[in-house]
């Protein structure tokens, strides 16, 4: 059963990567530990997981401080594309990297769908020590 959850998470990432203009995707825990990834070889998944957790953590705190309601996602805009870090349930975050030509409307819909599935899988897969 342990392997089953991991496989399903990997499946979600593979699906995201297949979308046009998507460079890579990774699932990290909110405290910066890597859960699963589908990233190009040039990226270090563990480092990206830690950084994404810091971005989401700081963004969430900023949102609370500014009284802007609850946090959904952080989008980092760059010369080449965008990095979207989205909360996936209580435990996890989904990071998606896309090139600038991506259709953001469609992409965000896919990200939303992915995030819901991730939250469900992780919730069902808890096995305490």
């Amino acid at each position, binding site marked *: 059963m342990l392997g089953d*959850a991991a496989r399903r998470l990997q499946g979600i990432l593979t699906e995201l990567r297949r979308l046009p203009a998507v460079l890579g995707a990774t699932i990290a825990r909110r405290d910066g530990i890597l*859960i699963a990834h589908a990233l190009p070889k040039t990226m270090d998944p563990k*480092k990206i997981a830690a950084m994404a957790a810091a971005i989401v*953590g700081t963004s969430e705190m900023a949102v609370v401080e500014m009284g802007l309601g609850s946090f959904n996602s952080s989008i980092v805009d760059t010369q080449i594309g965008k990095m979207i870090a989205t909360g996936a349930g209580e435990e996890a975050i989904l990071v998606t990297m896309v090139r600038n030509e991506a259709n953001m409307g469609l992409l965000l819909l896919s990200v939303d769908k992915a995030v819901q599935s991730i939250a469900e*899988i992780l919730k069902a897969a808890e096995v*305490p020590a």
Partner: protein
Amino acid sequence: MMQSPPKPIALRAKTGIPVLDERLQGGFPRPSTLLLFSEKPTEKRLFGENFAIQGAKAGETCLYVDFFRAPQLARGELKRFGSIDPAKLVLVDATSSQLLLPSHEKYHIDDIDNLANIREAIIAAMTAERPGRIVVDSMEFLMDRFPKEDVLRLWRELIEAARAAGTVSCFLFINWTLMERELDEIRAMSDFVVEFQSSLRGGIVRNSMRISQMESNGIRTNWIPYTFKDLVGLTVYFPRILVTGPFNAGKSTVVKALAEKSISIDRMGTTVAFDYGNVNITGIEAEIFGTPGQERFEFIFKIFAREVSGVLLVVDASHPDELARARQMLDLVGPRIPYVILANKSDLPGAIPPEEIAHRMKLPDDVPVVPTVATENKGVRDALLMLAEMIIGVR
């Protein structure tokens, strides 16, 4: 011309994990009997396989009795642990006869439904090969198929034969049906019990093991988290070691000193997010997270202060007025997490000695205070090793 005698095998059977071997005074003694035990399916086979391969790497002959895998498959899977002299790994084939295939192994069990035949095949291999290590994978295979009294008798006979041959024997066993009383009996037949545990939290599998010597006052470790590394084998793994301490104590420099390829998210000389590095010392892998020291970044600290295996608390020995803040940061991590104090910048004028720091911070006696100079990579690695020993309970 005199033929050179074969290389004598080491008195102790190393696990290949230096921190453990040190505690075991060089490894498991010969002869001895190990029970690799779990209540649920876990990755305990990794330990058995690793133990056999470490033996083969050390030039010992290892006997692997495999009831589940065909010999070709087992050999293929064992390649993950790195290359060995194939002659040093002797398999007892228990699957070919189950599949009605001819066995190509020197030793094979021809009648899997006959305990006497199983016994004979294993003991014949033991007597002929005089292996340094034996792994039986696994006893639950037999428990599932034969009356438990018969299996227990066979188990005792195998232990006796292994002892006579002066080898370390490992028996893998998952308990499905036995009562506590019978388990106690099995434990009492063994010299060491290695227990295994797996858990899944937030999508991440964590494996851990605990070694207990059955002899009274024997060794007893804490739960040791472990992982598998390709071509290396079993490795102690700490998913998170926190490097924390007051502003400007040298936390980022400590992370840099420990991990060659570390990253630091800093602006204007101070860490604003975190430092991260992956450390590999023989037999130990750790993910090191450095936190910001300034109070205004405390919320970042909280993101990373989960599932912490241990803490390296860095203080500036030349700025004793910051020690109160250091104490406070320790409390942020929570109780019962092992920690080591790094008295950093110990080469600067005005640096106070470790004893003085321990005294001023009102530390318990068993907390080590290690003088370090992180900029010159002095003392930092020792501090991490000490912390590792504290976490796994061998210090």
